[in-house]
């Protein structure tokens, strides 16, 4: 499964993307931890910090750091838009061939970054961290997360032990082509499945929160379930909406026909009367089947006018024999020296 040949240009250009929201206490230690972890890195790197509309001094602190370090890029949001948009903005503005994402609360350990990059260079498109000794509350964080991961793996068909871990490494061309919206940062591996990526999972360190409060609670369970449904449907049916809606229409069609016949049948018996509720229900279900088919046709129109082109996904991960394929790269831009 793994290529001998890595499709990442050498030396590797690395972008570390970190979304920040009210992390004034953590950013300085975070910055120094990342820079010292990357001291031994042989390629070039940049750090992209995204300030998601913090109300505290986060931006002032990172802007001061950036004034002295051209490798540090800061994207300041106009308001608080959420973690997934922040992640997406960082990825959009990163120019490395390898992108590593992590949380800004110091729970991920920057010294794991190079390990992930090394794993990616072995020929993977996506390397996800697994917090095997997670330092969080058992009842409100670890148990719900365990159930969620099982469920996500079962439903999406991408069995990953720890979807919630932000520490991940990506081949830039792959992640830049995956749409991230809503709360999708938790579902990146599943969303990425449209590309057919080679995914590896490695154990990473995890620390207890040192500063500030956890920004999640149990309330997100509902949102995670909703997003799971969305991820499942869009990744599996986006390309063939008519087929999917037709599959939905089949049971309605069958049930409708049966009920209609059952409702009309008494007419043929001597002295029988038409059963209005039964025949009517049958007609309703038949009309449902018709609307679903129309919705499917509408879906085809939506897909045709959208900007998703599956062959572009295929190009990202294809292999050629003999191997003379030039891997598709992102924008030809220079990392800040």
């Amino acid at each position, binding site marked *: 499964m793994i290529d001998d040949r890595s499709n990442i240009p050498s030396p590797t250009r690395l972008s570390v993307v970190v979304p920040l929201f009210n992390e004034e206490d953590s950013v300085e230690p975070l910055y120094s931890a990342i820079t010292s972890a990357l001291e031994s890195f042989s390629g070039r790197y940049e750090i992209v910090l995204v300030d998601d509309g913090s109300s505290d001094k986060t931006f002032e602190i990172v802007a001061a750091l950036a004034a002295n370090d051209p490798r540090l890029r800061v994207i300041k949001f106009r308001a608080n838009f959420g973690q997934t948009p922040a992640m997406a903005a960082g990825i959009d503005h990163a120019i490395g061939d390898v992108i590593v994402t992590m949380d800004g609360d110091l729970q991920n350990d920057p010294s794991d970054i190079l390990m992930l990059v090394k794993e990616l260079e072995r020929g993977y498109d996506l390397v996800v961290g697994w917090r095997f000794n997670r330092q969080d509350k058992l009842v409100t964080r670890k148990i719900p997360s365990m159930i969620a991961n099982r469920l996500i793996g079962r439903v999406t068909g991408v069995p990953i032990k720890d979807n919630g871990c932000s520490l991940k490494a990506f081949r830039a061309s792959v992640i830049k082509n995956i749409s991230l919206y809503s709360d999708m940062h938790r579902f990146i591996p599943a969303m990425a499945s449209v590309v057919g990526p080679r995914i590896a999972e490695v154990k990473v360190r995890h620390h207890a929160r040192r500063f500030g409060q956890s920004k999640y609670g149990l309330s997100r369970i509902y949102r995670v379930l909703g997003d799971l449904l969305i991820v499942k449907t869009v990744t599996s049916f986006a390309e063939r909406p008519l087929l999917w809606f037709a599959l939905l229409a089949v049971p309605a069609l069958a049930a409708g026909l049966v009920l209609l016949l059952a409702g009309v049948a008494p007419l043929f018996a001597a002295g029988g009367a038409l059963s209005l509720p039964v025949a009517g229900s049958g007609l309703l279900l038949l009309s449902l089947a018709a609307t679903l088919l129309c919705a499917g046709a509408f879906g085809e129109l939506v897909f045709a006018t*959208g900007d998703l082109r599956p062959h572009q996904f295929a190009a990202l991960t294809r292999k050629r024999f003999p191997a003379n394929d030039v891997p598709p790269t992102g924008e030809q831009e220079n990392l800040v020296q």
Partner: protein
Amino acid sequence: MTATSVQLSVIVPVGSRYDDVSSVLDAYQTVLDGLDVDYELIYVLDGPQPDVLEILRLEQTRHERLEILQLARSFGEATAIAAGFEVSSGALILTLPAYFQVDASELGRLLEDKDDYHMVVAHRWPRAGGSFEKIRRSVFHGMLRLITGQSFRDLGCGVRLFDRAVLEEISIYGDQLRFLPLLAQRNGFRVLERDMRQSSRDEYRGRYGVREYLRKGLDILTVFFLIRFTKKPLRFFGMIGTVLFGLGALGLIVVVVERLLFGQALADRPAMLLSALLLVLGVQIGALGLLGELIIFTHARSLKEYRVERIVNPAVVASDASAAEG
């Protein structure tokens, strides 16, 4: 006057409602001249209005900063402002109604507050009008607050000062002009609503009939969909669909159980028809939600969910030659 020196572009859309053109123009002009800014004044005639055009053409001989834009048909206020915006060049945009709404002498105070905000909108206060009108207004804005979580108290006021970036980012059409402050705030712009004295000549001459109420109701619905629906269609439609589907399924189960256990014939149960109807409706609404998700998913790359205020150390886009180096 060269276009590059313009700091403030004032756009006045002229629709069906306007007060005496010359006196409105004079009132605005006097105040604007008193401010220490380079400005241009753009009147946009929304559809052919020969009499207004004639007056404005005459005024043009007196007011050198006055520009007139005549649209070939009536497109509505939002499009008129967008058309004026296209020909404008100021970094700041000020929209003003073609009739007296706020006391013109207060316009300068909008500029004073502009520094800390991307947009400053006027709130006519103290406000004339009977108590019934007051109740009607507070009900409308209260409902909007409930839906959007943002509290604006006078969306009907056309006096708004904002950065060019606001209209560059938000395309308004149809009846959305009134909601521009809401949409701007949702895009992360900082918006201030500021009290301004109401003009003594501001009165709505039309009557509030059934039609007006219907329109207000539709307006609220529009905002509701714009704010709530555009990001997560399945969460919204899915919830409604699930509830309806659930009710329908429950009804069917009851009917079937009664048939099996108590032998009550299905043939004379209208409840069965109702349950089937709810079931069908639930699936249809859920299917709409799925279609909505499909639209978002297939357009996600053009629908950016974030707005950047500034970038420190932006990426240097180098030529291919230097990118190949190393």
